[in-house]
């Protein structure tokens, strides 16, 4: 029998199930203990597993990240929470110079099975520094596995997979999805296949492909639904795993439809969206009827709450881009 869970509760359940299954999993960060995290993703974990398994640290992100490196070196599987996207930046050196490089540096002698959970992206009316889409910084850094779930079932399975993964994972949680709900069969999910390196076709279509991930998947699905009413059939690919990237699924879709729009919330310049465009045109050049277009955030700092709706990729903006895909021959 299915249960209805929010995205947040699915993450919380994944943490609890994995802590239950593996005594080496430890959870720490700012406010993750008694408070259960500012988004309540770690709610109840300290009460259930004790202070040594889920605990608050001093307020220092580099400290949290560096300590996680050492713990992972010494037999534990740390799952750390960065309270918000922009508050992970103080830990950037530890992430880029150590988390990402330690296994390679030691020829695999030292593995770092740790997870960096980052509530990320906008759409929640948050103040400055609480809405950054920081995936491009991590995706550009060799050695990091970078994933973002866009559905409630993926929230559950991908977080469990991240914790079991032998390498460090940057786990990006789209904040605006925390309160979204879905029915799901937890039992079935527990035995579902891995998703790292595997995109999914979230909606089938024939005329053009929308390629996206994380917070923008639902917007893309809405756009595809609206397009369908206008008689245009859009396929939506949820990338899920940014690194490694599933070229096969993405290219297959674009070869089929011949047109593509890449959608992401982050500023577009030198971003994951740029990468997807570059890969797609390299691999599908002769199938393309039009350039691959992008609908991304503007190349500006994330705006204040009253202006964010101008910034975020919207259904209209996606459909405008689809309209630009040179349909004269259709």
């Amino acid at each position, binding site marked *: 029998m299915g249960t209805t869970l929010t995205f947040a509760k699915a993450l919380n359940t994944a943490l609890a199930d994995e802590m239950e299954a593996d005594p080496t999993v430890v959870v720490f960060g700012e406010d993750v*203990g008694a408070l259960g995290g500012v988004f309540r993703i770690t709610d109840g974990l300290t009460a259930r597993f004790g202070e040594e398994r889920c605990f608050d640290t001093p*307020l220092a992100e580099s400290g949290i990240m560096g300590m996680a490196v050492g713990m992972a070196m010494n037999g534990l599987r740390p799952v750390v929470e960065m309270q918000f996207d922009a508050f992970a930046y103080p830990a950037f050196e530890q992430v880029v110079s150590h988390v990402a490089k330690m296994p390679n540096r030691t020829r695999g002698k030292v593995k770092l099975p740790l997870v960096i959970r980052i509530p990320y992206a906008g759409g929640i009316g948050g*103040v400055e520094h609480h809405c950054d889409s920081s995936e491009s910084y991590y995706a550009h850094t060799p050695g990091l596995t970078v994933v973002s779930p866009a559905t409630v079932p993926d929230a559950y399975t991908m977080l469990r997979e991240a914790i079991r993964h032998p390498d460090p994972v940057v786990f990006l949680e789209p904040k605006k999805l925390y309160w979204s709900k879905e029915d799901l069969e937890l039992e079935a999910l527990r035995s579902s296949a891995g998703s790292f390196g595997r995109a999914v076709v979230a909606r089938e279509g024939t005329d053009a492909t929308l390629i996206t991930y994380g917070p923008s998947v639902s917007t893309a699905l809405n756009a595809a639904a609206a397009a369908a009413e206008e008689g245009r059939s859009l396929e939506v690919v949820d990338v899920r795993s940014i690194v490694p990237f599933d070229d096969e699924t993405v290219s297959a879709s674009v070869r089929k439809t011949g047109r593509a729009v890449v959608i992401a919330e982050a500023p577009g310049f030198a971003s994951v969206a740029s990468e997807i465009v570059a890969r797609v045109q390299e691999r599908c050049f002769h199938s393309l009827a039009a350039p691959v277009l992008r609908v991304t955030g503007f190349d500006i700092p994330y705006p204040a709450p*009253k202006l964010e709706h101008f*910034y975020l990729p919207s259904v209209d903006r996606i459909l405008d881009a689809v309209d630009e895909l040179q349909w004269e021959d259709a």
Partner: protein
Amino acid sequence: MTISTGSPWHGSMQEPAGGADLDARRAVEAYMLPSAEPVRLVDPEGRHVHNDTYPLPDGGALLSAYRELVVGRRVNDQANALVRQGRMAVYPSSHGQEACQVAAALCLGAGDWLFPTYRDTVAVLARGVDPIQALTLLRGDWHSGYDPYEHNVSIQATPLATQLLHAVGVAHAAKLRGENTVVLAMCGDGATSEGDFHEALNFAAVFHLPVVFFVQNNQYAISVPLSRQSVAPSLAHKAVGYGMPGERVDGNDLAALLAVLGKAVDRARDGGGPALVEAHTYRMQSHTNADDATRYRTDDEVAQWVPRDPLQRMRTYLSELKLLDGAVEEDIAGEAERVATALRDGLNAETQVDPEDLFRHVFSEQTSQLREQAAKLREELSREEPSAHGSGA
């Protein structure tokens, strides 16, 4: 002019000093170590407590400071109400910490600089910043609403401890020009754990800059208690590691705050270098309206701090001195009410945001990329019809 660094004993590390220096060494340590108890000049019952080092500020100064205290409390209450009414998204209240807020603003001269955090709105207003401009941030219109140069008040910083370094830079620039500007930089107890706290104090000490670091230790960083931030005897003890004096003060005692901060500011202005002041206070309300403090602390704990309220004790003290009577109280209440009304009216007025602003200030001269993007948005918004594709997501 050269970069003057350091402190009197600097250089003595190169070689072990002779025994004759030992007393001097211990004296230096004593100079940096905070007093054993937080400095207190007026106790919770409103009685003066004598202190050898810190004389009580005079009655007139205390009365005008008290006026700001009452206004500050009213601002906090009004801002909370405006959040409940949906006129502001969020407000991190300094209820209970208003004495710190007022003292931070009043101890500075007009040419000095204040570096506040998100929680320090009352200090920002006490320094003269227009309240509606200050609340632009929390209303969500823009990331900061006032001109920092108008009252020498930097933006209210969110990323913790980062602003302390900006404060150091402002002081350094002033010092290089030979100006005698003092900079007061504020942060919370939690922020002292950040690397930037360490780097800021060290830079200020090494370059011997006129910066007063003012930590409002309100016992919590959101839900995390002080015991998880530090196991030093006090946060003021951190001064020792930088070779600067540290001091602790009762953060609910306006008189003591004015005295201790005032002395640190004077010392800095006279070329004495930086100092660290820790105020011992309490965050009476939740971190913000989005927080639920019952998850991590008891009502009992909060109740213990009620009798230490900074307003009540100043009121008692000033009343007993006869500096405060019904008429003065009424006058002050009237002023607080006017500020509250202005706040309410200001925030109830609808503001217009201009999407072109998104692209206007990213660079001094707009890049061709931003010109294109702005044009695209303009074109999108200019379409008469609410779009051919329906209402959007």
